Every structure is written in structure tokens, then in C-alpha cells.
């Protein structure tokens, strides 16, 4: 029997060893990050190739920026294509892009752009006025295929861009049917990037899988749900850029796995980290934190058509009842500031004169008594997914539940799967719900009108708040091209919203990225689409 036992042990050992050996075969050439760039044997990049591996939560939907709406798609297309005008490196000011300069007419109805000369698309097509005209005509003809074009440049049934014409090789004239204040900011958005007309005229759908722009990087390969590879455009029109030879975007859905990959050097940049990861990145000398300027707002919406929030006093009471500072401290790891307006301070037109509702449970109770609130339980909706503006909806909801209970509002936390959550909230089925918004083009209109105007009930105005006076201000502001007058209008609007209190604005968060300390010049842009032309890696 003893012999048999030995034998069994032997068999077991062989089994275990054989698996481990299979596992560790060739363990000597470990995957230790950038070391592999030189041993990779990739003939195209050669020995000293600088490759940046960028880890993110999800894959792109398509690589034709005109047809998508998701941030992950724009993250990649922003480096393959370029827009006529650019946002600033760190802000949303308007800078030259494919257009060297531009001139609006006095009445704001005509914009004349002078284009960069000598620029070529990756397929060799010349970039010129004709190419711009063809792109705009493509967007105009696209209808619901180009969702951002219809949301930014179509009002009702009317196209804001009436016509676009080429005057000479490098001059393009846009004629508008009505003045549009955020016109240039809209054009700077990723969806309005200029693609090679040769490609989309031959096969429009092809652009989604084989993107061709003028940008610093050329498309190489897309392995779905896995990686997208782009490489240096050697003919890029700005000398010395890009610095990197290759960028690989990897989809790593799990946040903690992405952080692990960053720690082991398998990736060089990790996007979309949780605020709670900040400490472990800071503790690691091989890593650095990159902060993205805040352009978002997280809020608690109060559906104004539902009792008890049809009473403005109850809404104000809720504003007094919630301890925003405590929320920021507990769930955003200090990577946020408490909000008092429905838009972040970086947006021009922000009204800093407004005094936010301070945390004052006594005042809240008094207001509730005045309103004659009956103590009926409300539903408090918690977001099921983390977003930069709301890192943990469930926990934030629990804290708010406690705040509300303290002033005598009993609540029940409810949650749904994300698509369901949005649809039900959009139908006005929620009493109070957590949600937020990240700005698209850095314009006040994109926050205030989009989220709080009566026109947008049924889309992004989830609280069903509708104030005719406010609506008039918004409409005036949309066509007002004098920046100062326009900002004044938005300041006025924020006062009205503050008094009506359809929301409890909670926080403006600072999203973070983690990067290897070998990465330099990485500038995270508030819009979330980072241009990597200046980024370098040791």
C-alpha cells in the first residue's frame, strides 16, 4: 500500500508539473512592457520604435466619426482625423486646425475659412476646399445616419449650414441660415472631422472600418473588442510630430485589471480609473496620475411633474438637506468640487455670484413643513454604472437616502440596468434620480438648454422642468454672437434655475488617468478625446 501511495503522489506531481510547465514555457522572455517593443520583431517599427499602449474600458463602435456618438470611438478617431478648427490643448477655446484662419461676417451668417496648404490624406488625396465641401455635403445628406450633425446643426427641420462653397483651392465659405453662437465650437467636435472624399465617395461604409483622415496617425489594424493599432503618419504636415511611432488602444473592461496591467507594464496609459485607485498609483514610483480638467456635472434630478417634487419648496428643501461636501469627500476621493450650478466653472457664462444651497437640515425641515409635505416615501434612483461624474451611484444614493431621512423624507433606493434606467427616467417614471452629463463642445448651451429646456423633455431633460421665461433666454442666447451679452444671458438663466431647483447639482469631478512615468507630455483634454501627437515615451 505504501508503494501505491508513492505512485499516486508521483502521478499527481506529474500532472501538476506538466500543467505548470505548459504554463511557464518560455517564461524567460516575460512580457515586461516596453522591453518587448525592441524584441517584438515587428519589421515595420524596427528596433527603437516608440509604442504607446493605451488601456481603456471599451472598444470603439466604428471609426467613422460622423456616424458614432460614443466617447471610445472619438478617442481613436481624434488621432486619425482632424477638424477644421481645434479646441485648445487644455480648454475649449478655438484654435486653428485644418483651417489656418477664419472670418465671420458682421451678421454672423457667413464664415470664411482659409485652409492649410500642402496637407494630404493618408491615402494620398489632397486636402483642399473641395474636400471640405464634399465632407459637409456628406453630413448634410446623411439624415439620422449622422446623429451629431443633426443634433448640432439641424434646428427643427432647418439646416443651420445653408450652403458651403469652395472659393479657390484653399478658401471655403459657410453660409448659415441663422446665426449660431457655438458654430465654431461645434465644428471643433470630433464628429466633424474631415475624411478623405476619395474613400467615402467610393464606399461610405468603408470609412467605419478603414478610416482615412489627415491626422498624425494612420490606421493599421482593428481586432474587435481587443485592440486598435494606429501608426505614425510620416507625411504629417506639422514637422516633428507625432513623437510616437505607434499607438495601440486596448480594451480592458475591468477597472482593476486595467490598473494591474498598468502596474505590470503591459499598458502605458490607463483611462477611466476609479477615484479609489488614486492612492495606489501615487504610491508607485513608476506611475503617474494625469488629471483631466473637469467638464461635467453629477446631479440628483427631481421630476417636477411628480409629487412631492411638483412643489418648489420641497425641491429647495432637498437642496438644503444634502451634504455635498461629505459626498465629494467620501466617494470622489477629493477629485471633485461640490456643484452649485448645472454646469462646471470652466464653461464660459458660469455664474459664480450664485450662492449655492448650503447644507442646512433645519432649513430643509422648515421648508418641508411650509410645503405641507405629507411624509410619503419617494423612490430614489441609483445609477447602475460608474461614470466619471458618478463613481458609485449606489453608495452616493445611500448617503443621500440618509440625508433625506434626517429631514423627514423617507426614500427607497431603486436601480435598473443602464439602458432601462435611462429610458424609464426619460419617460418621467422616477421621483428623484442620479445622473450626470459630460459636455460635448464646452458651450453653456450644451449644458443648460440640453438638460433643462422644455424642448428637451423626452430626451435629455429628465426632470420635465419647463420654464417659458428660461426658454426665451436660451433661444436668444443661441443666436447671440456677442460673447459678453451671451454670457450675461446664461448667468440670468442660472439664477432662474437656482430658484426653481429642479436639480440638486452635486459635483464636478476630475476624471483621472494613470500612466507610466516614462510617458511625457500627455495632456488630458476636458472633452475626453486626447490628441497624442505631442506625447512621447522614453
Amino acid at each position: 500500500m505504501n508503494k501505491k501511495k508513492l505512485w499516486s503522489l508521483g502521478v499527481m506531481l506529474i500532472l501538476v508539473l506538466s500543467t505548470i510547465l505548459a504554463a511557464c514555457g518560455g517564461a524567460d522572455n516575460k512580457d515586461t512592457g516596453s522591453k518587448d517593443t525592441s524584441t517584438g520583431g515587428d519589421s515595420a517599427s524596427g528596433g527603437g520604435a516608440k509604442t504607446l499602449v493605451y488601456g481603456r474600458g471599451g472598444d470603439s463602435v466604428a471609426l467613422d466619426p460622423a456616424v458614432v456618438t460614443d466617447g471610445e470611438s472619438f478617442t481613436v478617431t481624434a488621432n486619425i482625423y482632424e477638424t477644421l478648427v481645434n479646441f485648445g490643448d487644455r480648454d475649449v477655446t478655438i484654435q486653428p486646425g485644418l483651417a489656418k484662419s477664419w472670418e465671420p461676417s458682421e451678421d454672423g451668417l457667413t464664415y470664411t475659412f482659409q485652409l492649410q496648404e500642402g496637407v494630404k490624406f493618408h491615402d494620398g488625396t489632397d486636402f483642399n476646399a473641395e474636400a471640405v465641401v464634399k465632407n459637409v455635403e456628406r453630413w448634410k445628406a446623411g439624415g439620422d445616419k449622422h446623429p451629431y450633425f443633426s443634433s448640432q446643426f439641424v434646428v427643427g427641420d432647418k439646416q443651420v449650414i445653408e450652403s458651403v462653397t469652395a472659393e479657390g483651392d484653399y478658401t471655403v465659405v459657410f453660409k448659415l441660415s441663422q446665426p449660431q453662437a457655438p458654430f465654431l465650437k461645434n465644428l471643433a467636435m470630433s464628429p466633424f472631422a474631415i475624411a478623405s472624399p476619395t474613400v467615402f465617395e467610393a464606399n461610405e461604409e468603408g470609412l467605419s472600418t478603414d478610416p482615412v483622415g489627415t491626422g498624425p496617425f494612420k490606421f493599421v489594424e482593428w481586432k474587435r473588442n481587443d485592440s486598435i493599432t494606429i501608426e505614425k503618419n510620416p507625411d504629417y504636415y506639422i514637422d516633428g510630430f507625432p513623437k510616437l511611432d505607434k499607438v495601440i488602444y486596448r480594451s480592458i473592461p475591468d477597472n482593476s485589471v486595467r490598473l494591474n496591467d498598468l502596474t505590470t507594464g503591459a499598458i502605458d496609459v490607463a483611462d477611466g480609473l476609479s477615484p479609489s485607485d488614486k492612492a495606489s498609483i501615487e504610491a508607485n514610483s513608476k506611475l503617474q496620475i494625469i488629471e483631466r480638467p473637469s467638464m461635467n456635472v453629477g446631479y440628483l434630478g427631481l421630476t417636477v411633474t411628480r409629487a412631492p417634487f411638483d412643489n418648489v419648496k420641497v425641491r429647495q428643501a432637498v437642496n438644503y438637506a444634502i451634504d455635498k461636501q461629505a459626498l465629494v469627500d467620501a466617494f470622489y476621493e477629493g477629485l471633485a468640487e461640490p456643484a452649485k450650478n448645472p454646469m462646471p466653472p470652466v464653461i464660459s457664462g458660469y455664474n459664480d455670484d450664485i450662492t449655492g444651497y448650503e447644507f442646512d437640515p433645519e432649513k430643509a425641515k422648515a421648508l418641508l413643513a411650509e410645503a405641507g409635505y405629507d411624509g410619503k416615501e419617494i423612490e430614489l434612483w441609483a445609477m447602475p454604472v460608474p461614470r466619471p461624474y458618478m463613481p458609485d451611484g449606489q453608495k452616493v444614493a445611500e448617503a443621500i437616502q440618509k440625508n433625506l431621512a434626517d429631514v423627514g423624507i423617507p426614500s427607497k433606493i431603486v436601480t435598473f440596468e443602464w439602458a432601462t434606467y435611462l429610458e424609464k427616467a426619460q419617460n418621467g417614471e422616477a421621483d428623484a434620480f442620479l445622473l450626470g452629463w459630460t459636455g460635448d463642445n464646452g458651450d453653456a448651451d450644451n449644458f443648460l438648454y440640453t438638460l433643462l429646456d422644455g424642448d428637451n423633455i423626452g430626451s435629455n431633460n429628465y426632470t420635465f422642468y419647463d420654464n417659458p421665461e428660461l426658454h426665451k433666454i436660451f433661444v436668444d442666447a443661441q443666436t447671440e454672437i456677442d460673447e459678453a451679452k451671451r454670457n450675461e444671458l446664461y448667468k440670468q438663466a442660472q439664477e432662474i434655475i437656482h430658484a426653481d431647483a429642479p436639480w440638486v447639482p452635486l459635483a464636478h469631478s476630475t476624471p483621472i488617468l494613470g500612466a507610466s512615468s516614462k510617458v511625457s507630455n500627455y495632456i488630458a483634454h476636458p472633452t475626453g478625446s486626447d490628441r497624442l501627437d505631442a506625447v512621447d515615451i522614453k
Partner: protein
Amino acid sequence: MLHYMGRRLFQLIPVLLGMSFIVFMLIRAIPGNPAQVILGQQATKEAVEALNASLGLDKPWYTQYFSYLGGILQGDLGVSLRTKLPVSEEIFPYLAATAELALFAMIIAVIIGVNAGIISAWFQNSWFDYLAMVIALIGVSVPVFWLGLMEQWAFSIKLNWLPNSGRENVRDPITAITHFYLLDTLIQGRFDQFIEVLKRLVLPGLALATIPMAIIARMTRSSMLEVMRSDYVRTARAKGQKMFIVVYKHALKNAIIPVLTVIGLQTGLLLGGAILTETIFSWPGIGRYIYEAIGFRDYPVIQSGILVIAFIFIMINLIVDLLYTVIDPRIKYK
């Protein structure tokens, strides 16, 4: 035999038909509209309606269902609402990624599971038997999610033996030909990449193998115990034949039938149930493909994805049934 196969394949039709119908109705019962999800929070009401119409989602359900069925009969699995690519074209790389992982996991599970089961049965009530069965019990109960993260922590972060996630070293990408990367690297004669792919299969493979391994071990053990009490094994032993021969030549052949059934069922389950493993190890497989499609209400992908998995599941079980006749000639299908 051929007649049997024909009958089995014929039975596939009502099964898949029923399946397609149930899935079709179920996913439409969940709230959340694909057009809304595709267009995102920015969308206007008109845009959502327009997109709904252009996707054909405004038509009554039976019109949608029959046009979907009609498409399938012509080999058309529909077009992804999200990426606008034909599902039949899109699905293969995902399927290959999962199949490679599942096969690898099943090989581990079968080798270890069957052998552990045999040894446990042979040395019934020995320390090995107790240990193996305790491990098997833990194996079926441990959450895959937790196991995966622990594996990463131990073998990747602490020991730095194996890569943490992904199918390939993206800095040295593999040219996909068949999308089975082990095969692709061999075709191209890239042995270094072959090792790389193998290393990346180990951690998710082990995580995925744990449950089937445990089930197979327990099944093998009980099946072997039964066989070993039979006369012919006793005779073989009495003749003084080597234990190895008795076990692997005589006993296993009769004990393996129920084990084979379990292996077939588990392989099918692995194909569809790999979502957690695929998420933790950033594996671009079919589980994640369908899971994400559910989040986006990408109806054609969900419908066809589940249908394809169901089809493979049924085929695997058919193959298992046919293998019975090879292993045990007494089994005959009419």
C-alpha cells in the same frame, strides 16, 4: 447510424426555431430601445424615431420575426445595429477566441479531472481521495471571478510569470488567419509567439477549467467505483495484471461513458458561460460580445449569438452521443 444522425439533425429544426422565438420575444420584453442606446444621451426624440424606423424596429414584432427567420434561412444572421456590420462576418473572431480558450480549458479539465477521479476511485478513502474530493468540492463552489483575480494577483503581479490579460502581446501582434492564435502562429512558423499565446491561455484557461475539472473528477470517481466492483475487473486483478493496464485498458473504457456526457455538456456551457472569465482577462470572446450586445440592445447580435451557441451546444452533444458507439460497440443507434 446515418439514419440516426439524420433524425437528430432534423430534430434540430424545431429546437432552434423555438429557441430563436423565445430569445426574440425575451429581448424585446426588456425595456430600453436600441435606437436610444445607439444615439446616446445626446439624441433628440425625432432622431430616435427616425433611427427606429430605419432599423425596422417600428414594425410589428411578427413582421420583424419572420424577416429575421427568412434571413437566417439564407445564412444571413442580421446586421449589428451598433456597428452596422453583418453578424455572420463579425461573430467568427469572437467565436474562435472563445473556442480556443474553451478547448484549452477542457483539455486541462479532462486530463486532470479524469486522472484525479481514477486515482481517487482506485485509492478510495485514502488521503488522496479525500483531498481530491475536497478540492473538487471547492472547485465547483468557488466564484470564477474571484479565482481569476486571485490568479492574476499571484501569477502575474506577485510572481510575474504570466501575462495579466489579453490574447496576445499587442506590441508584437499576431496576424490573424484562422483566428485560432495557436494555429495562426504555427502556420507562420512563429514559435516565440506560439509560446506567448500559450502563456496567455494558462490563467483564463485554469479559471475556466476549475468547475468542469471538479465535476469531471467526481463523475469519473463514482463511475470508476462502480465499474471496479464488477467481475471482469476483479478477474483482471486476480490474474495479476498491472494496475495501470486494469485501470486504463479495462475499467476506464466502461466508466468513461457518463464522464463523456458530462464533458460534452460542460464544453457547451463553457462556450456560453465564459463571460466573467473573458471580462477579467480581457478576452475578446463570444461571451463578452453577447453581453455587450445586451447592454446596447443590439437585437440581431443577441439573437444570432445565442442561436449560434445553441447550435454548437447541440452539435457537441450529438458528437458525444456518436462517440458512445465508438467507445462501446454495444451501443447502437437505430
